[in-house]
């Protein structure tokens, strides 16, 4: 089934911005989307994948290795020549087994030829792409730990069932969930680069517009995708340009100071927040085609980069976003 075009998603600007930033700079560390059901979280995440420029990967490689991966992991990849392939997007179902995620003994080959072979799991599939977990707050703890470990190291090490395999697994983790149904551990939250909150649009006109588009897509998916292809292509080009520009951009001392002051003011724990804030501001500048990273980029991305890192004060009902906005108002005027 054709995916809903990214550019046809109405509203939800913060989520779209965060996803694009993660696409420009995957090292930011993933996006967590909080929100109610039926707000288009999954749609946006899935739409993003089909939007991205293709990658070069070793032909026939089960892991989608890049040229560098080929050198680092000669055992798993081989020497296939580089061909274009789509950015992978893996949808991790709730209740996926550990076997499915990390990979397991290839039963078919074991049965057929008595051969001990590794059947790559979802982590391998997600390499260089996106791993999307809907309702990540409901995921079993041991799987969450495993995912974090791999996401942080960029490598999946399998030592089980008599197998011993090491393969690259660098991916952007996109999680979504509804905090009403269980919180996410702060240790896990902190690993996400950006977090956004989505709400159902309240504006009737916006809701009508969404219904119209969805109905149109339902009637004629191919035609619909084709109609939006131009818009999607523009975004794709922006992302590609942003990626290229990213290496040339560096945040100046003034922006670094702003970032440090802001983190201090809102009480965002740890250095990770500061680093992410800076990286995200840089990625946003790259996406916008700006010549330098400015305070404008910093403030635009600060809520997404920091809201999940504030120390939680359960007695203070003030939302994280409000606290950040207030601090920015006081600091930067």
């Amino acid at each position: 089934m054709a995916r809903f075009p990214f550019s046809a998603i109405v509203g939800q600007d913060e989520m779209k911005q965060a996803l694009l930033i993660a696409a420009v700079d995957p090292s930011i560390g993933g996006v967590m989307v909080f929100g109610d059901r039926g707000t288009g979280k999954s749609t946006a995440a899935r739409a993003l994948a089909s939007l991205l420029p293709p990658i070069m990967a070793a032909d026939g490689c089960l892991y989608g290795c890049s040229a560098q991966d080929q050198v680092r992991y000669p055992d798993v990849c081989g020497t296939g020549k580089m061909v274009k392939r789509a950015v992978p997007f893996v949808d991790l179902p709730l209740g996926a087994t550990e076997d499915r995620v990390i990979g397991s003994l290839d039963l078919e080959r074991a049965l057929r030829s008595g051969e001990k072979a590794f059947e790559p799991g979802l982590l391998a599939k997600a390499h260089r792409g996106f791993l999307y977990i809907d309702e990540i707050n409901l995921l079993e703890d041991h799987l969450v730990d495993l995912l974090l470990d791999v996401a942080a190291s960029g490598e999946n090490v399998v030592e089980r069932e008599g197998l011993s395999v090491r393969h690259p697994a660098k991916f952007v983790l996109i999680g979504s969930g509804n905090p009403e149904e269980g919180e996410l551990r702060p240790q896990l939250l902190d690993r996400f680069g950006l977090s956004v909150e989505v709400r159902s649009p309240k504006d009737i006109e916006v809701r009508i517009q969404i219904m119209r588009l969805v109905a149109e897509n339902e009637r004629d998916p191919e035609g619909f995708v084709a109609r939006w292809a131009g818009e999607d292509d523009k975004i794709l080009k922006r992302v590609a340009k942003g990626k290229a520009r990213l290496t040339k951009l560096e945040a100046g001392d003034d922006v670094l100071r702003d970032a440090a002051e802001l983190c201090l003011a809102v009480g965002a724990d740890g250095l990770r927040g500061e680093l992410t804030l800076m990286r995200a501001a840089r990625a946003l500048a790259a996406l916008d085609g700006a010549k330098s990273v400015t305070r404008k980029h910093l403030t635009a991305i600060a809520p997404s980069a920091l809201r999940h890192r504030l120390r939680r004060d359960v007695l203070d009902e003030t939302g994280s976003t409000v606290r950040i906005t207030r601090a920015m108002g006081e600091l930067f005027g």
Partner: protein
Amino acid sequence: MNTPDAADPLHADPLGDAVLAARLLALSPRTFGGMSVRGGSPARDALVAALGGVIALRRLPGHVDDERLLGGIDLAASLSAGRPIRQRGLIEEAAGGALLAGMAERIDATIAGRLVQALDDGRAALVLLDDAADPDEAPPISLTERLAFACDLTHSREWRGVVLDAAKATLGQVAPLDDDALRALAATAAALGVESLRALIFAGEAARGLAALEGRARVGKADLAGAVRLVLAPRATRLPQQDDAAPPPEDQPPPPPDGERDDQSDSEQQQQDLDLSDILVEAAKAAIPADLLAQLAQGKAPRRSSSSGTGHKRKAATRGKPLGARPGMPRGGAKLALIDSLRAAVPWQAVRRKEAGRDAASHPIGPIIMRKEDLRIRRFEERAARVTIFAVDASGSAAAARLAEAKGAVELMLGQAYVTRSEVALVAFRGTSAELLLPPTRSLTRARRALAELPGGGGTPLALGLNAAREVAEAVIARGRSAALVILTDGRANIAADGSPGRPQAKLDTEAAARAIMARGIDSLVVDISARPGPEGAELARAMGGRFLALPRADARMIQAAINAVQPIGKAA
């Protein structure tokens, strides 16, 4: 305040609407995702039978495994054939029709996750039979959210003559909704507090479906009203804010089960002066299910079905449902998972025979060569499962000054509990009853709401509070987790276990309740937060073999710190 649909005899019995929903579903299973049908009545059996006559229904047993659901290698067939044999999964087999899941409130999270993906990709449609008896039980919300229709046939008194015709119409023959229709639907959804866009989209398609069933090419008012009734009304989270929200007449004479929809024109004539969205809101009001209506009228949140996560983990634990097998030695209480161990060993037989110097081909049959690494052990609920149950005295004597602090302390401990992945439950007692405000949960959001809504005042039914807390603790223990009680009270009971006032009896009952807690060996802590602690709190703690803290002047933070010092939340169970 008569609406066209309340007057329509076809729709007085819930079966009428359920049949209509089924007809729509049969029209395009993929568009509507499916329906959930609550209540095991003859009406439901008749409906399912009739639906099975027009689209293929494939039963989905609760114990289905991944391979059967999604397809994969058929291990048994492969072994006997000596080559891999693939089997199609149920989802694939049900393509074009729908999967039928009985006891849907017990669907396992793993399976729900698979089904969600299949629904999202348009690979499956689902008919859920919801047999929940307990209001806390419901099919996973992640599934019901993705199904257009939800019907409750618990009170249906009809079952005869349910027949569905094979769909002759198609959705494609009906024009898209115009702006007025879209706007009216959106406004109605807003009035009912239905936020999900999915619901709104379903409503639009349902309106087109209704027009298609009637052989019309354009969506009319009656179609919109029908869509509101079928899709939006069951999802209402509040009553439309209008004048007289009188509940619709509940018991109307049983109508003929099926028939033609007619005599709409008269009532439409009467309604003509009304704005379209007003008509729709009226239609919705008349169609909000009675139990939902009662809850909404009381200002309570509707049956928030157990979220797929917590609910399922809870159920899984009750049934002792294993999480799957892991490699390991069956010792220290761990049980051998025989099938999984065999499964792990079988693929290696050819290799091992070779290694053992036997020719696999000439000795195809022989004892299975097992090795240590093949052994699998069963895993059960494995989280650090400790549940701290707070029993908060919200009576007049305790509440006057200290309820706010107690609430604050509970919130703080919750904040901490969610860090350590332990869970918290909340029992409040006041007046003549005790109530479980919050079943064991990890959600700070829900807990905060439950606390905010907790009123104070009235007598102190301490015995009832203790009993309620003990029951929660027993349920927790029965699920293989450990429970600890924290009781915030002044200990001055004045309501007996039967709800009658009187200190002496209240005191006796309280002691009995406390001893029952001690007998069950439940960890307990009594925190006396009254301004002038008397001896009652300490006596209570002694009676239940627990610890005691008197904190007359502490604020929320100090209470939390003190409770923590005595009883760290989330310590290993």
